[in-house]
């Protein structure tokens, strides 16, 4: 029987897991332990519905509903002084919880505070674009769409950014294999020569250690050298003895009595 591989996540799994291993968690603090964050959270929760909030490893993490994202980001920018959106992207939780986690990483330069606004969103739903608030979201939202397929509404140019425009699939989904899928393996052949050429060209070689001993053009044959481009088949392959230079070699098999190790 073939080994069962779960289809919803093809990410590499741990080879061995201890049944009794309890996974520890990073230290999490209450937001009230930090005055500035507490103030920001208060301002935010007055405007939108805050699901949960904590301080994790020095930065505040606030979870909100995905419908409130624009309002929340706007409040944080205008009233809490988060002047820069340093990063935004998503995390794929489709296999585990059936949704994505979208996060906005914000920076307050005046008070030197960083916070992360997170929200869960189901597959197929779109988020409201924050490009009118932060222009840095322009590229970041396009990247999120490219990698996860999460569309941003009212984005000025919602196109793929890193992958080619006619690409199929979203590479950072857990269902997408690391080596690429069927479409990816034939992409270049299909695009340049057409689908009919698939058979003539053959699948792409992905084995970096592959050696073709009968290919005299791309592979050297140490000890069995033949002229460049010589036609080689298993029949006409001649064997020549490997001749090593005798100059620097010591014949260890011969009992010459030469002491190599001084300690003996």
């Amino acid at each position, binding site marked *: 029987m073939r080994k069962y591989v779960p289809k919803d996540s093809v990410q*590499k*799994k741990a080879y061995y897991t201890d049944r009794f291993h309890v996974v520890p968690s990073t230290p999490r603090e209450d937001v009230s332990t930090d005055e500035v964050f507490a103030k920001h959270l208060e301002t935010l929760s007055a405007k939108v519905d805050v699901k949960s909030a904590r301080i994790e490893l020095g930065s505040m993490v606030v979870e909100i509903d995905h419908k409130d994202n624009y309002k929340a980001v706007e409040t944080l920018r205008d009233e809490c002084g988060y002047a*820069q959106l340093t*990063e935004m*992207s998503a*995390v794929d939780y489709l296999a585990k919880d059936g949704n994505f986690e979208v996060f906005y990483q914000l920076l307050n330069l005046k008070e030197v505070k960083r916070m992360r606004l997170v929200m869960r969103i189901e597959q197929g739903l779109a988020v409201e674009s924050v490009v009118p608030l932060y*222009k840095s979201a322009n590229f970041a939202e396009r990247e999120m769409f490219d990698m996860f397929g999460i569309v941003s509404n009212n984005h000025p140019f919602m196109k*793929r950014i*890193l992958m080619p425009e006619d690409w199929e699939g979203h590479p950072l989904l857990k269902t997408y294999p*690391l080596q690429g899928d069927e479409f990816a393996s034939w992409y270049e052949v299909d695009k340049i020569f057409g689908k009919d050429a698939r058979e003539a060209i053959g699948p792409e070689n992905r084995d970096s250690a592959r050696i073709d001993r009968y290919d005299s053009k791309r592979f050297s044959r140490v000890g069995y050298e033949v002229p460049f481009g010589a036609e080689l088949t298993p029949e006409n392959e001649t064997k020549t003895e490997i001749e090593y230079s005798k100059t620097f070699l010591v014949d260890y098999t011969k009992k010459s009595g030469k002491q190599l190790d001084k300690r003996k």
Partner: protein
Amino acid sequence: MQQPNKLSPFFENLNFERDDNTMVINFGPQHPSAHGQLRLVLELEGEQVVKAYPDIGYLHRGIEKMAENMTYNEFLPTTDRLDYIASTSNNYAYALAVEKLLGIEAPRRAQVIRTMLLELNRIISHLFFVATHALDVGAMSVFLYAFREREFAMDLMEDYCGARLTHSSVRIGGVPLDIPDGWLTQMRAFCDNVDYELEHTYNALLQENRIWKMRLEDVGVISPEDALSWGCTGPMLRGSGIAYDIRKEEPYELYSELDFDIPVADTNDSYGRYRLYMAEMKESTKIIRQLIPMYDETEPQLMAHAPQYISAPKEEIMTQNYALMQHFVLVTQGMRPPKGEVYVPTESPKGELGFYIKSEGEPYAYRLKCRAPSFFHTGLLQELLVGTYIADVVTIIGSTNIVFGEVDR
């Protein structure tokens, strides 16, 4: 218009007139001053750019995907390939993020060495910037001089870790090697040399050079509001008059103990940014000079002691059974950090380089996002280039100092 089919393909670099009398040209992706694989589609009206569209992704290798399928230590050499001009800063940003997730701290000596390497790398990267920027604008000789100094810096890196570009010399939990004999003396000589050359060669060649100033002054003006909104960091942000340096504001490693200044330019243009890079190199040598005496006061320990996550030193592995077992488990299975998420920003030579790591307690990161400064600086180009002349496009691209290893990842 072209009518592409199988026999006559679409020629991307054919200039063609459009109905509204604008011309579309493709800049790159194989253009020597595109700093890698930038394809810039420019719509021109005469010589003026009316629309610019940066098309990226020609160097996309899926590094974030790879990170999800590699153990934490396996991934470290891959980070070299992000910003390949300054690989130590990538290694360091990644190592620091994982360390913060694990809750460990590198020993003092490792911190001194790391900070020294980071600053050396900053000099390497900034010299590269000055060299290529000047070359793009047309000053060939600066390129030759700057590469000479950069070569000395790379020799120092080579003496330390054996590699010149892809160092991997910062590991999770410390550094793998101690400084070789006489390295600090060479380092001091190098700092003196850089300071001298900055003053007598680069400044003499460029600072008050009439052509250089004409090409750079008032070119690529970014207002402070735009710089913040577009997510500009590092010299791009400080070039717009906002003094925010992560080394100073959110100090990591030894930066809180060191005395250095944050140069700021308020002209908002390419010339101001160029001045900034030159001033930052001076600050870097100042930092390295302070670090050299600090090295002697440290204990020889190089890797943090955290047996659950980090292998013991080689001597212990070779002599003690338990250390060997730990090492075996860590090599074959990889470390399992606690469950949680972390975002750690660092000041790389290009700007804010941060790693967001989401861990589910597995040896493989559940999600790793690399916040690359150049990615956002490339996004800025679509607005910055509009209204400029085609001759300034190259200056502006050079001045943003983007590296495509980290734009495309």
